[in-house]
């Protein structure tokens, strides 16, 4: 392993990393709010909404992400829906992660004490106003730790899209390894993933501290 060899790898790895981060960011931007939509659906008092949301969550959590990826990229064209690799990857990840986030949010919402709903109701809040002003704000601090965990999983899951040929970090490393018959690129890629998850873990600890500030006495 020498540094000048590593330096020659970097442009390709950095390009791959850019794709990885783009997939990561797009997935979060769309799946975090979409998850809330499915959460509200899954606890809705309107039965069709409830069932559609629950079945959706069940399917996307109950089948492998890789299979979903293959289905959307290779399978949907048979039904006349064709996506390029990268959009197919984003779509799959958004749909999949939305289901996971929906479950996290639902657990968070349902962990809020019944007394909160009752207090709001006796003050004249509609169910929606109760959600908006009372339940969801309290849920935020409770779901932050599991959501953060999930996003760390997401960083690693992005590597799965190599399977449909998206040129992200792992794919770039793999290309270099095959070309040079040298596994250094894998090691560098591993270090990059570690660096990302390390920085995220640090950031999340601060975030959690910030959001749990009201729980402590003399916060």
């Amino acid at each position, binding site marked *: 392993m020498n540094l000048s060899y590593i330096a020659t790898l970097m442009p390709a790895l950095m390009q791959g990393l850019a794709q990885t981060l783009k997939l990561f960011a797009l997935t979060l931007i769309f799946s975090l709010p979409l998850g809330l939509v499915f959460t509200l659906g899954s606890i809705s008092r309107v039965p069709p909404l409830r069932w559609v949301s629950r079945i959706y969550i069940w399917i996307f959590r109950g089948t492998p992400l890789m299979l979903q990826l293959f289905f959307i990229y290779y399978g949907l064209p048979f039904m006349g829906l064709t996506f390029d690799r990268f959009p197919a990857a984003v779509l799959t990840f958004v749909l999949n992660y939305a289901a996971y986030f929906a479950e996290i949010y639902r657990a968070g919402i349902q962990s809020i*004490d019944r*007394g*909160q709903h*009752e*207090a*709001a*109701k*006796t*003050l*004249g*809040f*509609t169910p929606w*106003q109760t959600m908006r*002003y*009372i339940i969801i*704000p*309290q849920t935020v*601090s409770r779901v932050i730790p599991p959501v953060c965990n999930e996003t760390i999983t997401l960083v690693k899951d992005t590597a799965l899209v190599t399977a449909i040929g998206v040129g992200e970090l792992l794919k770039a490393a793999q290309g270099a390894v095959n070309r040079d018959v040298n596994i250094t690129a894998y090691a560098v890629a591993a270090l990059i993933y570690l660096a990302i998850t390390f920085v995220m873990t640090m950031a999340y600890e601060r975030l959690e501290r910030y959001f749990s500030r*009201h*729980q*402590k*006495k*003399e*916060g």
Partner: protein
Amino acid sequence: MPILQVENVSKQFGSFEALRDISLTVEKGEAVAIIGSSGSGKSTLLRCVCNLEKVSAGQILIDGEALVSTQSGVVRYPKEKEIRRICMKTAMVFQQFNLFPHLTCLENVTITPIKILKQNKAEALANAKRLLQLVGLEDKADSYPAMLSGGQQQRVAIARALAINPDIMLFDEPTSALDPELTAEVTAVIAKLAAQDITMLIVTHEMEFARSVADRILFFEDGQIIGQGSSADFFDNQQNERIKRFLSGFQK
């Protein structure tokens, strides 16, 4: 016209009858205390009045408006929106306070007037400060509930309930979750409200408090009112053996 009229209300949980044909009225300015043993239906009655439970039969009128009525065996509630409007004439204070932990004390008091009643912000704020002062907590306005003692939390909950300017305040064992030394600060606030002729229906296990604050006492047993009277009469001239036994259990 009475502020609250409960007529022939029954409430079933499955096959269990928590309230059996209960009738009572609370007049404007009156403080009425409900006492009785555990499981006798006291909370259930309050919860029916503020629509946390639906009655199985009977009629509830708040300030003359029907929250629920029953005609030839059919229980009828108005539309949700109408229910909310009628129930906002009542305000409930819970045993467990149920303050909103993500909001400061001041915000707990202002959230309903501002977000739900769409009152002018400045007015709502001024009114909330006045209410916090009334319960003796103006200096805790910016604290979060978790930083307060139970007694202080309950006083904020009282201010929060008063902020919707209800016609009748409902208290469900407001001091039961409190240490004895904190009970006094809450009962003092409630006594202050009674002195201002705020209409109240109070469920309590504090006999001294009931005697001093309430104009009238209702005694619940097995989902029925088996005795009632003016405060002095009820405690000092009680004839009913069952109630006498209950009361003697509270003598220190």
